[in-house]
């Protein structure tokens, strides 16, 4: 076993990401070992392992083993939650906040659901159907966005324990419902019984329907997580998923945009249309069963129960497979060894090195890609909403604002310039010996951002100007946006040096900083935003208010601010770099 330990250890060295794959391989190995040991499993070498179970076999030291039931997993989950809170005031506060929010949401949700009784019966049913569907979809998608937030969610961590797959499944199910949000969901769903049920039969069947739907939510969510955990354990899988997070967030904006767009004037008709589509989906059937309370309801519940069983079965199968498969993505393909146009133009040296590296990172690091996609997407959404608000004749502000917003958002990305480098920043630190070196480093980062951003902002300005009705407006738009970008880079350099924080390598949609650094992260981006906005005001305000010629001054002004920011920040970075190194290298 010693050799095995070494290899697990070695794989663990390769980086945080690989310890799960190491555990996964270890799981396969230990399953094989036990087959050669006391009892041979009929299905041979699968994840199902001989365990104590109820038939107490002799354990390690000749003692009777105790059955490992779901309560063990529930206690593990509770202990993990408690352990995560220990010694960190900010995390305790965060948890209390979550708890209060969940109680509020649960209470409010329960009473809103119950108040459906006051609405006409058919409208109430339609609302119930739509809301139940939202629950199921939410439960299916959340693990995609939040993977890595919960230690008990990853089955490979448990794969070295002698557990049967069935035991593991029951345990994982138990841990999944142990939590603030699952219980809040259940409470809100129970509200639907109060809101929709007719007669005693409706209530009785309603309880069954809610429990089945709740189980369906959990099991589906689990199936998605487990099926994806194989992909999520590979580097490429995580890369792809990290970028797709942006699209999920965007998709959440879609209904909002459509409603703003006013595709249908009548909300009740819209609701009914949606509900009639969803009527025969599982959540639709659950809602209908509560309202119906008759023979149809019984049939619907039977269908629902079968569905839960089938998905549960699929989940167990996925679980069994996930435990014994390993990450093979490190046999990755080679990258092109191109120099890039800019590197050929720039003189040889640190500046060219930093620019080339930054441009590669923008392309290859999912965090870089997410940042750029998000900046473009948010600009698009805001431009779209702006243009919706002011129908009719276009104004110059409408043509200029989108590019300016883009400039702000892209500038904000540089508010923590050293964060993406993280622990690799030592490599620059052991080279830079003067203030000038650090200023050059920042200049390289700014140049890289500007290389991508300048044409992009010009493009946004042209599109916005075309939409607003006068192509000429693109000129002040692009100039103002470039100026604002310069201001953003300048203020961002300051926050990068004075308020640096770790960007976690595992992205999820809910946090942008390592545990315990949320406050600094908030302060840094908020500071960069407010500071940048204030400094940009002298050029942005006149242009937006209808003095487009002021935009001629925007670019020199932006260059000046970014130069000043680099100067102050670079000089400070030379003195502060051990602190910066410490701040961006938190283990996440």
């Amino acid at each position, binding site marked *: 076993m010693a050799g095995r330990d070494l290899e697990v250890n*070695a794989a663990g060295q390769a980086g945080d990401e690989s310890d799960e794959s190491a555990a996964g391989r270890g799981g396969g190995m230990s399953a094989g070992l036990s087959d050669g040991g006391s009892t041979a499993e009929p299905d041979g070498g699968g994840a199902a392992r001989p365990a104590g179970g109820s038939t107490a076999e002799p354990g390690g030291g000749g003692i009777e083993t105790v059955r490992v039931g779901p309560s063990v997993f529930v206690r593990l989950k509770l202990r993990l939650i408690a352990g995560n809170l220990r010694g960190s005031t900010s995390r305790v506060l965060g948890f209390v906040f979550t708890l209060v929010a969940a109680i509020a949401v649960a209470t409010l949700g329960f009473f809103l659901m119950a108040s459906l009784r006051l609405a006409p019966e058919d409208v109430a049913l339609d609302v119930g159907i739509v809301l139940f569907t939202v629950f199921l979809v939410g439960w299916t998608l959340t693990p995609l966005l939040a993977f890595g937030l919960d230690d008990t969610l990853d089955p490979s961590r448990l794969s070295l324990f002698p557990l049967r797959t069935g035991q593991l499944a029951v345990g994982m199910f138990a841990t999944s419902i142990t939590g603030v949000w699952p219980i809040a969901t259940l409470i809100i769903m129970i509200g639907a019984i109060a809101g929709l049920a007719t007669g005693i039969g409706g209530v009785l069947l309603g309880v069954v329907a809610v429990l089945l739907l709740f189980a369906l939510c959990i099991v589906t969510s689990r199936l998605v997580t487990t099926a994806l955990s194989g992909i999520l354990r590979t580097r490429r899988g995580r890369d792809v998923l990290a970028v797709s997070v942006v699209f999920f967030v965007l998709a959440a904006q879609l209904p909002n945009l459509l409603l703003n767009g006013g595709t249908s004037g009548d909300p009740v008709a819209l609701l009914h249309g949606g509900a009639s589509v969803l009527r025969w989906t599982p959540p639709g059937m659950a809602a209908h069963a509560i309202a119906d309370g008759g023979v149809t309801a019984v049939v619907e519940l039977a269908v629902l129960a079968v569905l839960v069983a089938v998905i549960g079965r699929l989940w167990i199968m996925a679980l069994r497979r996930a435990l014994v498969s390993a990450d093979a993505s*490190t046999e990755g393909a080679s990258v092109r*060894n191109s120099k890039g146009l800019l590197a050929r133009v720039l003189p040889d040296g*640190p500046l060219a090195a930093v620019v080339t590296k930054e441009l590669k990172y923008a392309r290859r690091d999912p965090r870089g890609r997410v940042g750029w996609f998000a900046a473009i997407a948010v600009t698009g959404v805001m431009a779209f909403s702006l243009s919706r608000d002011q129908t009719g004749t276009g104004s110059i502000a409408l043509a200029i604002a989108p590019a300016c917003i883009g400039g702000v958002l892209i500038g904000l990305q540089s508010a923590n310039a050293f964060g993406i480098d993280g*622990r690799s920043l030592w490599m620059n630190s*052991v080279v830079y010996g003067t203030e000038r070196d650090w200023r050059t480093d920042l200049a390289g980062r700014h140049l890289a951002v500007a290389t991508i951003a300048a044409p992009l902002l010009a493009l946004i300005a042209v599109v916005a100007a075309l939409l607003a009705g006068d192509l000429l407006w693109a000129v002040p738009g692009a100039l103002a946006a470039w100026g604002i970008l310069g201001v953003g880079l300048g203020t961002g350099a300051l926050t990068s040096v004075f308020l640096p924080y770790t960007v976690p390598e595992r992205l999820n949609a809910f946090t942008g900083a390592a545990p315990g650094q949320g406050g600094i992260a908030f302060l840094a981006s908020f500071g960069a935003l407010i500071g940048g906005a204030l400094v940009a005001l002298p050029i942005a305000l006149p242009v937006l208010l209808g003095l487009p010629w002021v935009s001629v001054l925007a670019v020199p002004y932006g260059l000046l601010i970014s130069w000043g920011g680099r100067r102050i920040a670079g000089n400070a970075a030379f003195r502060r770099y*051990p602190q910066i190194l410490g701040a961006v290298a938190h283990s996440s």
Partner: protein
Amino acid sequence: MADIVEAVRTQGLFKRFGQQTAVGGVDLIVPQGSFAGLVGPNGAGKTTTLSMVTGLLRPDGGLIHIDGVDVWRDQVVIKSRIGVLPEGLRLFERLSGRELLSYNGQLRGIPRAEVEQRAEGLLKIMDLTEAADKLVIDYSTGMRKKIGLAAALLHNPKVLFLDEPFEGVDPVSANTLVEVLQRYTASGSTVIFSSHVMELVERLCDWVSVMNRGQIVAQGPLETVRAGRSLNEAFLGLVGVRDGGGEEGLSWLGATSR
């Protein structure tokens, strides 16, 4: 000891993290041209000491001289003279091995053609030519240590600091690392590496510094420190490990209990 030329000398080096004193007055001495091992149990302060000596962590007190130059006073001179391979081995993951080397060389202002030539040679000797265009994130531990060492050697430093260079490295890669390092010290350059594999230190080093609980407990030529014993015995004696004991509680462990 006055006659030896020192590559590294620290005086009263001191670092606290909150309540805990990680390094409490370390006087590290490494003569020039030596292959020096810094040994000690986990938590002895080896990594903290090396981080401070290489200018990655600011000490709370004490002096550090490399080649007679104060590390925190003249950083330009120091940083061009030292090569570093820190613990944990965080490299720029999204660059390929070749790109990582050329980034490093350009950052140090070495002409591009020269960087490419040196990188090619280093990749070849490290047996990384095939993997040169793969991203570092997809490298194994041994490959990462090798590319990290290549990056540290690229500017031909006078003193090389390596934190646990052999941890988690397979025997073949370890052998490559050793060969490169031996060739490097043979030319008069200095290597200081931390490790807790005594056999390796005994085999490679001519100078040993033993750390325990944030202090140097023994330091000098290998033969002096081990004083006729194996280095492992000498080390266990120095850090004060009790013999035996605590075995009664594990009576169930092992095949005999079945």
